[in-house]
């Protein structure tokens, strides 16, 4: 501090205004300085702390590692840091703000530096900063990023995966099946006569149907490897590995009947008078250039042509011949 500074301010005012803890001890560890910040967070008044040995000045025990560090500084005159990560709460200091809640111990970062008094006696200066806020901030940022990550991959109407997630997952699943040479099934699902439903019942009812169908499809999945995504307006897509074509067909029927069992009335759906779905499924071990998604889409088109409320299953190979049948 310059002469000018000393002339203008009472040093005590400055110490007591600081938003960090300051404690000075003499070479025997007796407290010489105890600023307001420390008094507030320790609940020990300056008058009660002065001239006490530091470990007795607090109302609770001080961590042994802190005392070792302080001792080392007083003996060897070398500065010491105590990090939050390794010590967390070495001194009994509390976050005082929440009056009704139980007080929690403050996370602290501490430095201890050797200083000399005006009489040239060796002393130690302890500086304490509150690292609770940076820990809180870090936790908050992490939970925000988790939420954003989920939002970025979830369809907001149905709460199932969105197209963005599907595209990325599909690519990975195909690459995985190619590498490990295992079967992969892609299901394309479309709600029958959905435009007519929307026109007659309105968009809100239409949204409800999409939500219910998504829920019905999702409820059929039980393995962690399987996903269902909203592919477009009233279109859904499922990615499921390790199924034989026969099992994939049984599963497609399960999907169809799950939606049928919802028994949602749809008077503009001529033959069925309720909400139904058509499904195209393609199963096979993908090789270079194969496009399961296109094939499943062709199968879906075929299911629509053949009268809807049904599935068409095709293997990945011999697709053309199969479709001509």
């Amino acid at each position, binding site marked *: 501090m310059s002469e000018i500074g000393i002339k203008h301010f009472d040093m005590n005012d400055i110490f007591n205004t600081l938003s960090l803890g300051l404690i000075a001890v003499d070479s025997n560890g007796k407290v010489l300085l105890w600023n307001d910040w420390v008094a507030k967070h320790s609940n020990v008044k300056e008058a009660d702390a002065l001239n006490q040995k530091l470990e007795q000045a607090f109302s609770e025990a001080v961590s042994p*590692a802190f005392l*070792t560090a302080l001792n080392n500084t007083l003996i*060897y005159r070398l500065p010491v840091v105590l990090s939050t990560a390794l010590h967390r709460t070495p001194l009994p200091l509390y976050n005082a703000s929440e009056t009704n809640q139980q007080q929690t111990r403050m996370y602290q970062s501490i430095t201890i530096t050797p200083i000399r008094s005006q009489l040239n006696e060796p002393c130690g200066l302890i500086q304490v900063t509150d690292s609770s806020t940076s820990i809180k901030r870090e936790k908050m940022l992490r939970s925000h990023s988790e939420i954003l990550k989920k939002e970025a991959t979830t369809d907001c109407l149905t709460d199932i995966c969105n197209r963005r997630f599907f595209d990325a997952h599909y690519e990975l699943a195909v690459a995985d099946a190619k590498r490990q040479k295992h079967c992969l099934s892609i299901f394309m699902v479309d709600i029958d006569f959905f435009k007519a439903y929307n026109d007659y019942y309105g968009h809100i009812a239409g949204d409800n149907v999409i939500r219910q169908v998504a829920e019905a499809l999702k409820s059929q999945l039980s393995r962690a490897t399987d996903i269902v995504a909203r592919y477009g307006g009233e279109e859904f897509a499922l990615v499921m590995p390790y199924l034989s074509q026969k099992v994939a067909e049984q599963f497609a029927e399960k999907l169809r009947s799950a939606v049928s069992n919802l028994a949602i009335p749809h008077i503009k759906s001529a033959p069925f008078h309720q909400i139904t779905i058509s499904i195209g499924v393609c199963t096979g071990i993908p090789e270079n250039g194969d496009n399961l998604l296109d094939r499943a889409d062709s199968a879906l088109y075929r299911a629509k042509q053949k009268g809807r409320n049904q599935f068409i299953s095709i293997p990945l190979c011999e697709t053309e011949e199969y479709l001509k049948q």
Partner: protein
Amino acid sequence: MNHISELHLDALTEIFSIGAGRAALSLSEIVGDEVRISVPSVQIINTEDINPASLSLTCDGRFGAVSQRFSGPFTAEAVLLFTEEQALKIVSDMMDSKMSYEELAEFEHEAMCELGNIILNACLSSMADILKFTLESSLPCYTVASADKILKRLKKNPNQPYIMILHIDLAIEKRHTAGNLVFLLSTDSLSNLVIHIKQFLGNIHE
């Protein structure tokens, strides 16, 4: 360079081994488990002769460096070097269950500072104790840099033509880590160090 003998280096190795023992004790107290630190060898070379191999900076990764400047009968900059990967492992071992690995990122620098500070202070204080002088030191500062940058920084100051290298082995629980503690010394500082070692050896032999 001629005036430092094998005997002097042996004496320094002894002195720093005592320091390493002290550091291990402090670290054990924090970790709540046995920590062992040894200093198998001490070397003094010309700063211009240092190369990546002499500091085990041979891998491509980045290195964590904790440095403190100290002054007294001799002044020097002390730098403790670990690979960044090792540094992270040490810190996460030390933190144990106290904090999750994800929380580490934010506090890794501070924790590395503390680890370096404990080892540096222990080595400095054992030297001060045994050679009977007092040292002052700055607070530690942690940086992460490539081997190239670290070597450039070590060679930067022409007033520090000597470098003292302590090879350090650190064992926390089952993990062994090797690092280097480097002291950058001026010609005067090295002479003063040698004088103090000679006095110390002379006292023993009397």
